[in-house]
């Protein structure tokens, strides 16, 4: 056995006995590295007779090839075992509490307004925002409130001066829209409203509303009823029924109070009706061609119904114990 054969045997034995990938890497360098033993054999080729050189060179290269394969095989065996050992050592208590990532939530009224928006945008309504500090003209006069009529109780209104007040209803947006746009249109708005009310579980001087109105050709009470049904379904789910009861609001004629039948009871939700022709005419809209409807809904009331909340005051008290439930 010549020196090369002896070298190969030793190398194979060492590879087989290597007990870690690190030891294997050292063996690899020892035999196959640039300064390794096999490379040294090649360098010594010059001392051989010329005719033996090709054969010897081929032997060395084949030995390098074979040894490389053996090392790779051995490495994959060792690496698998080492990974398993490392993973076992890295095992942790997976039942410890997760690292808390503080998360805030949106106020329940924001969430409800979001649902209202989704439902109405799906029905083709464009949302527009109006001011909370509103002009008397838009809050009352433009909505067909007769001067000094008992329907309009001044005592309920927060006035800032003779012509400005805190809006008592989001309906105040109607005049602003009609003075700028021509029909057809479908508009909705949500926001904060104010009325002098003694605060109790069902009344507050500050509350939130959504107001919806549209004007198009041939709009009737049937379109209103169908829209309310669709809207109520989106808000409350299930197959709701809608009921109309005559009621009076200066800005609608006929005017109704609408209820929905939900979870085995009738719930009064708000006022609705066909937009009063006086209002349309005051904006130069031909009432023979165009008619429209309007309806409103309390945001607090909606959330209370959806979640069984029984005290309106909770919404502006900002008790985190309440807010974090939604």
């Amino acid at each position, binding site marked *: 056995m010549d020196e090369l054969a002896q070298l190969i045997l030793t190398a194979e034995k060492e590879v087989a006995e290597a007990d870690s990938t690190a030891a294997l890497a050292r063996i690899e360098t020892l035999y196959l590295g640039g300064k390794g033993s096999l490379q040294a054999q090649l360098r010594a080729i010059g001392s051989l007779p010329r005719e033996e050189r090709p054969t010897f060179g081929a032997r060395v290269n084949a030995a390098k090839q074979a040894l490389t394969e053996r090392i790779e095989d051995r490495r994959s065996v060792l690496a698998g075992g080492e990974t398993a050992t490392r993973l076992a050592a890295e095992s942790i208590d997976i039942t410890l509490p997760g690292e808390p990532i503080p998360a*805030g939530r949106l106020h329940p009224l924001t969430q409800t307004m979001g649902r209202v928006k989704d439902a109405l945008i799906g029905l083709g309504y464009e949302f527009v925002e109006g001011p909370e500090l509103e002009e008397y003209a838009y809050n009352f006069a433009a909505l067909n409130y007769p001067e000094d009529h008992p329907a309009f109780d001044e005592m309920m209104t927060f006035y800032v001066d003779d012509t400005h007040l805190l809006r008592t209803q989001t309906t105040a947006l109607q005049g602003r829209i009609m003075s700028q746009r021509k029909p057809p249109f479908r508009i909705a708005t949500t926001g904060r409203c104010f009325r002098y009310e003694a605060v109790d579980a069902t009344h507050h001087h500050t509350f939130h509303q959504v107001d919806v109105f549209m004007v198009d050709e041939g709009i009737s009470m049937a379109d209103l009823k169908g829209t309310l049904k669709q809207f109520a379904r989106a808000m409350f789910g299930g197959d709701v029924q809608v009921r*109309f009861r005559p009621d009076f609001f200066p800005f609608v004629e006929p005017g109704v109070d609408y209820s929905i039948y939900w979870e085995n009871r009738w719930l009064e939700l708000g006022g609705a009706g066909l937009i009063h022709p006086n209002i349309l005419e005051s904006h130069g809209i031909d009432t023979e061609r165009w008619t429209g409807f309007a309806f409103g809904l309390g945001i607090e009331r909606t959330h209370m119904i959806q979640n069984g909340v029984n005290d309106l005051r909770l919404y502006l008290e900002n008790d985190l114990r309440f807010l974090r439930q939604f």
Partner: protein
Amino acid sequence: MKLPIEWIKEYVPIEASPEELAHRLTMAGLEVEETAESSVGPVLDIKVTPNRGDCLSVMGVARELAAAYKVDLRAVPHNPSRNEGETAPITAVAIEAPELCPRYAARIIRSVKSIESPAWMQARLIAAGMRPVSGIVDVTNYVMLETGQPHHAFDYDTLAERRIVVRRARPGEQIVTLDGQERVLNPEMLVICDAEKPVAVAGVMGGGETEMGPRTRTVLLESAHFNSLSVRRTSRTLNLRTEASYRFERVVDPAGVAAAADRACALIAELGMGEVVSGIVDCTPIPIPSRTLNLRPKRVTLLLGFEVSAEAAADSLTRLGFGVTPSGESLNVTVPTWRPDVVREEDMAEEVGRVLGYENIPERLPHGSSTQGGDSADGRFNSRIREVLAAAGLQEVATHTLLAPGPFEDSRTESSRIAIRSALSAELSGLRRSLLPGLLEALDRNARRGQSPLAMFEVGHIFHATDSRWSERTSVGGVLCGSLQPAGWRHDSKPADFHAAHGIVERLSDSLHLPDTDLVRSKDPRLHPGRSADVLLNGATIGWVGELHPRLSAEIHVRERIVAFELDASALQEAARQVRGYEPLSPFPSVVRDLAPRVPVELECAAVKTVVESVDTPLLEGFELTDVYIGNPLPEGTKSLTLSFTFRAQDRTLTEEEVTGALSQIRHALETRCGATFPA
């Protein structure tokens, strides 16, 4: 309004149970709020809408029921006296202000006996919520409840010249009303006078001097029609509301004036309370208006959304007392005198709809031109703000718009506070100029209840008065106290400080893709002077961030420091709208190098930033401050910063020489302009 059912049933022949009656009335538009028991059986408490003053009586309600049940209404029994009889010679009525009093009728009752009204009448009055007083007064109240027409009984012998003059009050004229109060009148008010002086405030309350009493022998009974607006204004000015004014403010049938007086007189005679003088003085200077309208059944069909025939429309209106005559394809409709609220076709469509029943209205969805739904630009932007802040760990709250003046608003803008006129309480006396007071109140409330973490925000409107104009803007504010991240098994809690609040502001500006904001020290008196800043965007102040001044935080129930911020959401929205460019991505690797300059301890980070940014090197892609160290072994008065610079070129891989060159430029700038040293 409370009415016993048995009284209503006297005028409408129906057998329905109280529950069914309540339901039918409610569905006809007269909402029954409650059905209570009384000595005369069940009593309906009906909420009458302001347009339906005609329903403020037994007859009015009976009329609605008769239409709903399709039965005939019975008339109120009375002995009509349409001539002046023996009344004219002994009294007279002169109306000097016919625009405020289109009709005034007087009847006289002689030999008045001071007896009580019968038990049945008293029982009905009590059931209806009125207090029995004396025979004739009870009769007038009874007839008011029955017909809706208020009356007043004067002691005839106390009237100067025993006659009535209806006129506007003279400036400063006075009267002592039945309640003993002295009232100062003005010419906007209508008064009933005798030959000399006011004896009643028309439609509101009688005077004390001419009030009938136990010794009254002769009574002058007033039944009149007054202008509703005038009564409302008078009642409001005098702050005096009565059963009479309540009705006159709404609707009283001008055609029923004499009939109601006759009904009262019939009852007085029947009950033996006195001897009714024949005849009536009925002064009607302005004829009772009659209104005839045109109604197209097709229009009713269009509005209600279901087919309504001419016959059905005519029948419905007739049942409510309207006069209907066909005229071609439409109907001529005469509106009854008790329905001044019906003035156009749509009003009649509602009447037809009420009688036919709204349950007949089908459900459809509007067709026609489709429209593009969507949220407003403001709504979308504010939703993004809310989502960013909630994701950053803050809970959204909703605080009051109305609030009392207090230390939590910026005293520098005190003059721009918008006050509520004649506010009823301090809490409701003005509009917020900042979200901070509400947020601090919410913080305090929750701190007292031991809640944590205390991190809240609000997006809401704030208000300022500027140069006689009002401004209403959307503001976003937040408040933090204590640790946002609670202590856990692997972290200690870290109380929120200025930098935490600043971090939230930076998160907001980063998430909304706003241009970089700058901070300058704030002079806001609400804030800690050393730990607060105004936030500048494109050079304009858009808000502030900082620690609450200890003077203010002492008022709040917390031990930790309170930090807060408030930004003008409208300004943020404006900035976010600007279009940003796109920077091509470099395929070449970046090189990161650190510098650790030692600088004077008072040197602000912003100064370092300015110097670095001013260095003219296109290779610098970005840099950040990764550490600040103060303390041993550094010399007193110095601190050590660690700055991490990223270099990159668009067109090549940088060489070591290029990077070193750029870095030494920066180093040089820091040495010369920030007094930085670089100890080995």
